[in-house]
């Protein structure tokens, strides 16, 4: 190629990015005063190798399936196997949800994901006074081993992987699930799946708890320890940024606080004398995927590199598997609008595309009607089809990390990682994430972001189509799911009959064994698996936790 006198190829009119900006770009008028992402990040008009787009391939990216996994955790990514399409479902009685599970599997869903109701998530049986009006409302009611048996009736626990979204009572749900497997004669090493079991983010964002942070982290790590020794195919924790983001965090805060939560669990496990490489490969993650397309893609790439480096550099992990950040993603529930709800289909499609371009391992796409109620079967089918469209029609999964090398995406990946690492340093200085959570540090940071976003929205600096721009009078009506509230009565009757039926001696012995394990600070999981088989209920175990570990209540900070 011939060069011009200034050393540039002749077609290049501006000698540098700077010159282009001054000569060409500044000669035109911009549409807006300021361009920023939903996370308040200033967006440059153009990225070139001169303003952060340059990347050192070997040290920053590497190849897919190789450390630091920036480009993906598997070498083949979606050419080898598509992500797991996993729609979160649960409502009413276990019978109701079992029917929905089968419906989803019949329509090509490849994994299950269970939503439990609020009483389950807060540790109350259906007949407790605090459960009134909430049984089977936001998820399925599962308070006994028999409920779990019904929930998975006709579903092979050794063939279908299931994710369970439950936290302060995760130990109990885990015990139900494995006790059902045992009753079916399945050995634990055949059981694959995930339990959310991430308590730190509960105090930060989702706010479902029983006991204070410290004993809560102990229970999380009981499941990690049990799986490390006895259930190698099961992910004992899904370290979750989703709820942190939904509570109003920025992309960087979501990433930083999630990684910090993960580090806190690692620290706790190490303090028990566990080897890093014995449990780290089973740690899994869960992120939100929000509106700002490239920011989200970069967030997933940054998350992988950051976790890999921390595991190797901070903890000396030797196995590659310990350094792989495997993640589930869910499109942002908070981005859905009740106004013009059919628009949500388009929002979800773009968010899902970002998740796929970000290289996630499994994905839930929200249904268009979820700001109105739990989704109808039709709405769920469109959400699932959206994933199938991306997988089968768009072609984006045919190339591994297709955006790798994009000046903008690489710069964003670097920036997001660096900013998240700044938070990690701050949290280290506070004495780690457990202390930071006890002091309310991440909670406060998120509240500030949530409020700032609302102010920006009110001022019209952030746009939500159909809400503060392109609004219509008279809202579109779409059908919503009507839940049979009879489930509450049915579940109350069921648990009363269950208690009357169980062997009182075996039940009492088991209950006492659980309490003793808690008092003596032993791992509760193996004891719980036997106890739930003997008829101990979710509420009864939770009562023990309340007695032994204490009760946490919301400090009510604004």
């Amino acid at each position, binding site marked *: 190629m011939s060069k011009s006198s200034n050393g540039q190829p002749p077609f290049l009119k501006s000698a540098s990015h700077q010159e282009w900006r001054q000569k060409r770009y500044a000669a035109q008028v911009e549409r807006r005063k300021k361009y920023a992402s939903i996370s308040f990040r200033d967006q440059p008009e153009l990225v070139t190798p001169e303003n952060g787009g340059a990347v050192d391939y070997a040290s920053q990216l590497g190849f897919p399936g190789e450390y630091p996994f920036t480009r993906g955790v598997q070498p083949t990514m979606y050419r080898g196997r598509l992500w797991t399409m996993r729609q979160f479902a649960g409502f009413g009685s276990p019978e109701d949800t079992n029917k929905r599970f089968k419906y989803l599997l019949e329509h090509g869903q490849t994994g299950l994901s269970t939503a439990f109701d609020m009483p389950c998530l807060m540790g109350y049986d259906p007949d407790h006074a605090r459960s009134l009006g909430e049984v089977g409302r936001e998820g399925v009611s599962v308070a006994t081993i028999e409920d779990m048996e019904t929930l998975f009736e006709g579903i092979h626990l050794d063939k279908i992987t299931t994710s369970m979204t439950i936290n302060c009572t995760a130990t109990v749900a885990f015990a139900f699930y494995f006790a059902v497997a045992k009753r079916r004669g399945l050995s634990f090493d055949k059981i694959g799946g995930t339990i959310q079991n991430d308590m730190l983010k509960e105090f930060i964002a989702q706010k479902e708890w029983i006991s204070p942070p410290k004993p809560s982290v102990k229970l999380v790590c009981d499941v990690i320890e049990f799986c490390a020794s006895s259930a190698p195919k099961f992910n004992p924790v899904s370290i979750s940024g989703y709820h942190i983001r939904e509570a109003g965090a920025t992309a960087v805060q979501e990433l930083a606080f999630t990684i910090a939560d993960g580090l806190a669990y690692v620290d706790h496990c190490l303090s028990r004398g566990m080897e890093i490489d014995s449990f780290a490969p089973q740690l899994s993650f869960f992120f939100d995927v929000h509106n700002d397309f490239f920011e989200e893609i970069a967030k997933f790439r940054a998350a992988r590199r950051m976790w890999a480096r921390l595991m190797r550099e901070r903890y000396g992990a030797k196995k590659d598997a310990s350094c792989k950040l495997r993640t589930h993603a869910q499109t942002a529930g908070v981005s859905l609008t009740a106004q013009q709800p059919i628009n949500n289909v388009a929002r979800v499609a773009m968010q899902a595309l970002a998740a796929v371009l970000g290289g996630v391992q499994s994905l839930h796409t929200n249904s268009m009607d979820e700001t109105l109620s739990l989704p109808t079967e039709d709405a769920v089918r469109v959400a699932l089809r959206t994933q199938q469209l991306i997988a089968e029609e768009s072609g984006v999964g045919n190339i591994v990390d297709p955006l790798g090398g994009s000046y903008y995406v690489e710069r964003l990946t670097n920036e997001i990682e660096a900013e998240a690492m700044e938070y990690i340093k701050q949290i280290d200085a506070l004495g780690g994430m457990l202390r930071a959570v006890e002091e309310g540090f991440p909670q406060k940071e998120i*509240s500030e972001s949530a409020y700032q976003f609302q102010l920006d929205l009110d001022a019209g600096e952030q746009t939500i189509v159909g809400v503060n721009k392109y609004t219509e009078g008279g809202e579109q009506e779409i059908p919503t799911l009507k*839940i049979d509230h009879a489930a509450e009565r049915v579940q109350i009757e069921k648990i009363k009959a269950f208690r009357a039926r169980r062997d009182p001696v075996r039940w009492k012995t088991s209950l006492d064994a659980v309490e003793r394990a808690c008092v003596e600070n032993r791992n509760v999981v193996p004891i719980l698996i036997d106890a739930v088989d003997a008829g101990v209920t979710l509420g009864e175990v939770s009562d023990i936790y309340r007695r032994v570990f204490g009760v946490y209540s919301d400090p009510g900070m604004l």
Partner: protein
Amino acid sequence: MTTNQAATRPVRILIAKAGLDGHDRGAKVIARALRDAGFEVIYTGLHQTTENIVRAAIQEDVDCIGLSILSGAHMTLFPELLSKLKSEGAQDITVFGGGIMPKDDIVELKKLGVKEIFVPGTHTQDVVGWIRSNVPVED
């Protein structure tokens, strides 16, 4: 004497979260926006019983209660709150709500005495304006 805009003191508002629901983003954002608008705002924190809310409302002598519910338990918790206010002789306290609720339920709740329900997407200044014109201040 009941006055409105010409109130001699700011409206006192209790923002409340009831039941097992943990979604507090909306409640906290609204509480801050109302405080910034010059109202006196008390936030209950999460997981309150309706008894606690009524007790706090009376003790704090509030003019209105804003109850936030995103768990689907609104048809249980709002009626419970209204009836407990009544049995404590505090039915003059205005009750409004916020959260995710189907339209038919909103109609039903308004019939029962909930003065207004704000759904996601509401401009915070609309809530401020609504309180200014709908919540009487008892001197």
